[in-house]
């Protein structure tokens, strides 16, 4: 108690240390969020972007947006993309975490190497998978043919029916390490004795998994899924490089559509409006994450 009082006395000195970072973030991000809201309420194009009169149109952009077919597609796509990625990367990540939690000689070093995909620039991952999914030269079609699964090459990225699947598979590949490592960390916090006593009571490994592992991992699982949602929902570079939203808008996400409107069609206000819709959804999900994190903070 005494020591707490002592720190309390120096109270606001903390601001001196935190201020430079806070100012930096306010200038570049705080201002940008504010400015982006204003932009979305104006009519801004190439001529009046940096200088000149910007006419206020209030919610016209949003109204126009909600009548825009491509925007609707992009919203649906963003959810499909996010949910599909979350489910598969979580399941695969969990399986890998369980496997590498066994104490065999290669467990640690190989689990470490498996983290690589998470750190590679998304642009490069997109390039690599573009090659793998290529229709004629792509190795995936070759494997599928050898295994007798297909007889004709699939036009993965140029067919609107399969492009989204290809993009999702790529993002799952990126997300697996993230899930594996966080679940592994969670698993190590479960005391070994619990499993031992369960074994004595005759529980098999399926029982142990659902009665011990899953319940004790609940908060870890929640955090991983929410955080995974946030990361996945705003993915941009990967899809932009792989397909640029095509073919025929079939892979447009809100992020790529926003970019296209702003920097290809120069409809900056419309692009900003899309970005704000994306942001609102992220913040709604983010509140759940903040609750968990800030609760841990108060302890």
């Amino acid at each position: 108690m005494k020591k707490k009082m002592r720190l309390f006395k120096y109270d606001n000195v903390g601001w001196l240390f935190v201020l430079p970072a806070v100012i930096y973030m306010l200038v570049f991000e705080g201002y940008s969020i504010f400015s982006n809201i204003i932009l979305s309420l104006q009519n801004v194009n190439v001529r009046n972007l940096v200088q000149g009169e910007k006419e206020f149109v209030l919610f016209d952009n949003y109204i126009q947006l909600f009548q825009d077919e491509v925007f609707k597609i992009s919203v649906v796509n963003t959810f499909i993309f996010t949910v599909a990625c979350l489910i598969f990367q979580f399941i695969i990540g969990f399986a890998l975490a369980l496997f590498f939690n066994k104490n065999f000689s290669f467990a640690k070093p190989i689990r470490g190497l498996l983290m690589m995909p998470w750190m590679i620039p998304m642009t490069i991952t997109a390039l690599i998978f573009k090659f793998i999914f290529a229709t004629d030269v792509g190795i995936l079609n070759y494997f599928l043919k050898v295994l007798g699964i297909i007889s004709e090459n699939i036009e993965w990225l140029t067919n609107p029916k399969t492009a989204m699947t290809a993009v999702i598979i790529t993002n799952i590949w990126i997300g697996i390490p993230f899930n594996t490592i966080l679940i592994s960390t969670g698993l190590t916090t479960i005391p070994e004795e619990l499993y031992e006593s369960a074994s004595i009571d005759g529980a098999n490994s399926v029982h142990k998994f659902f009665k011990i592992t899953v319940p004790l991992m609940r908060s870890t699982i929640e955090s991983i899924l929410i955080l995974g949602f946030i990361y996945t929902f705003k993915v941009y570079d990967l899809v932009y490089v792989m397909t640029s939203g095509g073919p025929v808008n079939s892979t447009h996400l809100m992020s790529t559509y926003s970019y296209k409107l702003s920097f290809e069609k120069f409809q900056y206000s419309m692009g900003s409006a899309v970005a704000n819709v994306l942001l609102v959804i992220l913040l709604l999900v983010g509140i759940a994450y903040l609750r968990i994190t800030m609760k841990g903070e108060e302890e």
Partner: protein
Amino acid sequence: MGSEKKITGSKNIVLCIISVFLLVVLLFPLIWMFITSLKNEAEIFVNPPTFYPHVINTKSYAAQVETGDFNMFQSFANSFIIASGSMVIAVVLAVPASYAIAKYRFAGRGAVLLGFLVTQMLPVSVLLTPMFIMFKRMNVYNTWWAAILADATIGIPFSVLILKNYFASIPKELEEAAYIDGCGRFGAFIRVLVPVAKSGVVVCAIFSFLYAWGDLAYGMTFILDQPKRPITAGIFNFMGQYGTKWSYLSAFAIVSIIPVAIIFIFMQKYIIAGMTNGAVKG
């Protein structure tokens, strides 16, 4: 799940073999890219594909690849400058900020913390146009500075949130001992606390660097001239012009992964620490 007992004997060997198999399957895209980068253009298009380069071709890597307006070495250097610059900004700003959040109970601390958490969730789409306008007005548009300043905004919140845990774990006695020895508040911070939290600082530096290294959106939007652009934007541009030049593209991919791989091999424990501490706490 048996994390306590070491598995030995034949079971160990079987698990090791399975794990190597899993490694090869999961990292196959990277391995395949590397193999491809050593083939010549004709061999890449051979059907059925060859699983090792029958004729080793290193030309795709060699000297000044100046196809189109993309110069790999220049782009690599640009990326290096941009990533280093934003790493320096992120670390210099985040270290004191995280120390304050961990060690002081100042008014508005909760709000500041919340602010950093929220900025981590922001999509680039929200920031691109406002930053674009801002950088034009600041006259840094189309320079390395635009990308450096923008990329640092990714590294700062991440670093603050990570480092705060490191500072919080330093016992109060250590700081108090520094005061008794005559250090001021700032002296104690620089001479005692930062050195103790060194491994945390390394994690932040690595991640700030890698985030900036991997950035495409900022580099592509805020820098117009190809000779100043980072390697990601250069490669993307090249893909647009020569989408099927896989011999070059695979070599570019491998080259731009090199820094990541080097950091990864030598500093793996920091990367794992960053991935786990940065995301979920306890």
